[in-house]
């Protein structure tokens, strides 16, 4: 009798293990498998960014070559305190979204689903603007958008990248973003 009870409980355990294994597969689907994570030994990523989005960013048009000559590790230490750490959406439907600058490459903004920040907004172009690191600072470039990109109150001229200071609002359609320390 006791054997049967043990078998009964073992079956229930196995049934639940299946459920847990299935959830594990879903988890790996969303965030990448743990093994791959360990192998890469990379810093903890922000929750919404996945391996695939990472891959997308790799496919983004590459930032100017200076970027490669100036890897992050070689930043002068005194710059560190002024270094912005995140891009934050302050207005619009995506308010509150944060994009960690340390772990991302150039940031593209637009309606195209492969943009880093996908804005669903009739006033935004599919490839509206991009923000990338150059030398010590961050550069904002309008990608020839229809309705323009505004830094503070001035319009950013397409194909004329400008310095993007910390805390100055950038308006793209209904969305406002800014760099934060």
């Amino acid at each position, binding site marked *: 009798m006791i054997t049967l009870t043990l078998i009964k409980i073992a079956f229930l355990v196995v049934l*639940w293990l299946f459920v847990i294994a299935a959830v594990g*597969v*879903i988890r790996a689907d969303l965030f990448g498998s743990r093994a791959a994570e360990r192998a890469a030994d990379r810093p903890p990523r922000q929750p919404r960014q996945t391996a695939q989005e990472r891959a997308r960013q790799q496919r983004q048009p590459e930032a100017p070559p200076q970027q490669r000559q100036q890897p992050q590790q070689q930043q002068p230490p005194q710059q560190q305190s002024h270094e912005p750490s995140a891009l934050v959406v302050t207005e619009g439907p995506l308010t509150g979204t944060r994009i960690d600058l340390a772990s991302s490459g150039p940031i593209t903004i637009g309606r195209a689903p492969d943009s880093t920040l996908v804005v669903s907004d009739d006033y935004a172009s599919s490839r509206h603007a991009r923000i990338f690191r150059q030398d010590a600072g961050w550069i904002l470039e309008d990608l020839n958008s229809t309705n323009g990109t505004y830094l503070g109150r001035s319009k950013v001229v397409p194909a004329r990248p400008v310095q993007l200071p910390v805390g100055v609002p950038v308006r793209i359609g209904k969305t406002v973003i800014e760099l934060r320390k």
Partner: protein
Amino acid sequence: MTEVATPTAARPRRAASLGLLVFALVVTIAGFAQVGLARDGSLPTNMFGYALAIVALAGVSYFVMQKWTPYADPLLLPLAVLLNGLGLMMIYRIDQTTTTDFPEEKARFEAANPGQEYVPFGVGADIMGQLMWTVLSIGLFIAALILVKEVKAFQRYHYTLGAVGLVLLMLPMVPVIGTELNGARIWIKLGPFSIQPAEFCKMAFVVFFAAYLVKKRAALSLVSRKIWLLELPRSRDLYPILGFWILTLMVLAVENDFGTALLFFGLFVSMIYIATGKASWVFIGLSLFIGGVLIIYIGAQLIGIDHINQRVEIWLSPENYFGGGCKLPDGTVDNMMDAKPTWDECMAAGGSYAESDQLMAGLYAMGEGGVLGTGLGQGQPYRTPLAFSDEIFTSLAEELGLTGIMALLMLYVLLVERGFKVAIATKDEFAKLFAGGVSFVFALQIFVITGGVTKLIPFTGLTTPFLSQGGSSLLANWVLIALLIRLSHEARKPAPVAIQDEGMTQIVNVGNLR
């Protein structure tokens, strides 16, 4: 349906899928083994045949899935295989009982009912039949996976499919072929086969609604007036939902099946909600349905149509009808368990007879199971009428307990979740609505049947997807899974690499960037 870039792994998940599939087979075969060990103290001799058949079926479907839809969702197939396997296991378990005699039961029955033939428990459970249907279903699954390259192709035939669905839904009302079982007319009889057309209706209606809503989505999203939080659509946009409402109420009144009516009306309302994203449609749908049900039941009460009311009464107070109840014209119900008003006395007094044995036996079975269950092969699920089809949920609940049945419901939750995931990941509007509708109809069907057997809502004769014995249910559900797998493959496969017109395309090793 806002466009959200959803992270989906654009890589095949072969290992994960195969691992889970093997796990599912292990669970199923372990279940068969436990039934044998508990009943006879040894592994059942015919277990290896069943195990071989199930493994072969799962293997073939896995191979086809990897060959034709390598990027498919890794969970859909293993979940369906496990549910189907657990169903086979439970049907086998009940089928085993049929051959066993219960001498004392038989003696008691023959003493109480002289001249009548004793019908043993579990009659009707047919593991070989179910296995044959599984083979056919997997065949259809494979055919659908290979042949249906684009689910969108159905969009062209949506009026045809909608009409087919309508006819199928109405068929049980036709006098000769429609058959009544347990008070509900949801079966049709074609020669030796009984078919539950509602199963095939599901797919036809999902296709029709999806194609219809693709066309009407914009109009249905319009707001004419706003009353407090409720955004009311224009009155002329209400006609389709009203038309379908009347149709489902007809189903409720004529087929006398609350579950079927709820299933299809709920499907329509949920798909409008998926298409428009307006909660007011859910509110309108729910109030229409509740209002309609009340109208029918109160109307039936006033006119005096007993068979509709009796189903509600059985639902509200099944205890009175356990073992047969005689409802007298003055409204009191005499229980006839001890043959105390006999059948003849009841009829002479102008009463009407009904019984709630199935519902009550199912409730007792679940109570018997408790938290951990009696263990497979150690309970008495065969005592419930139709323990292998309508009541397979309570049969499993008796032998696996609350713990097991929760795991089982989790399997369904995961299946539905994967379906919605497909809907989110799919770009095409029709396919999005199709996948969303299929997932929702699975969820709602499980709610309707488990709600029915647990006395939450009136009992219904709908099948439990993949578990219940019955060919129509298996065939229809496996085709739906095949279409979901096809859609998930289309959604998850990497987009064809186009030459991007961005001046130059560079390949950058990001490792250097960091």
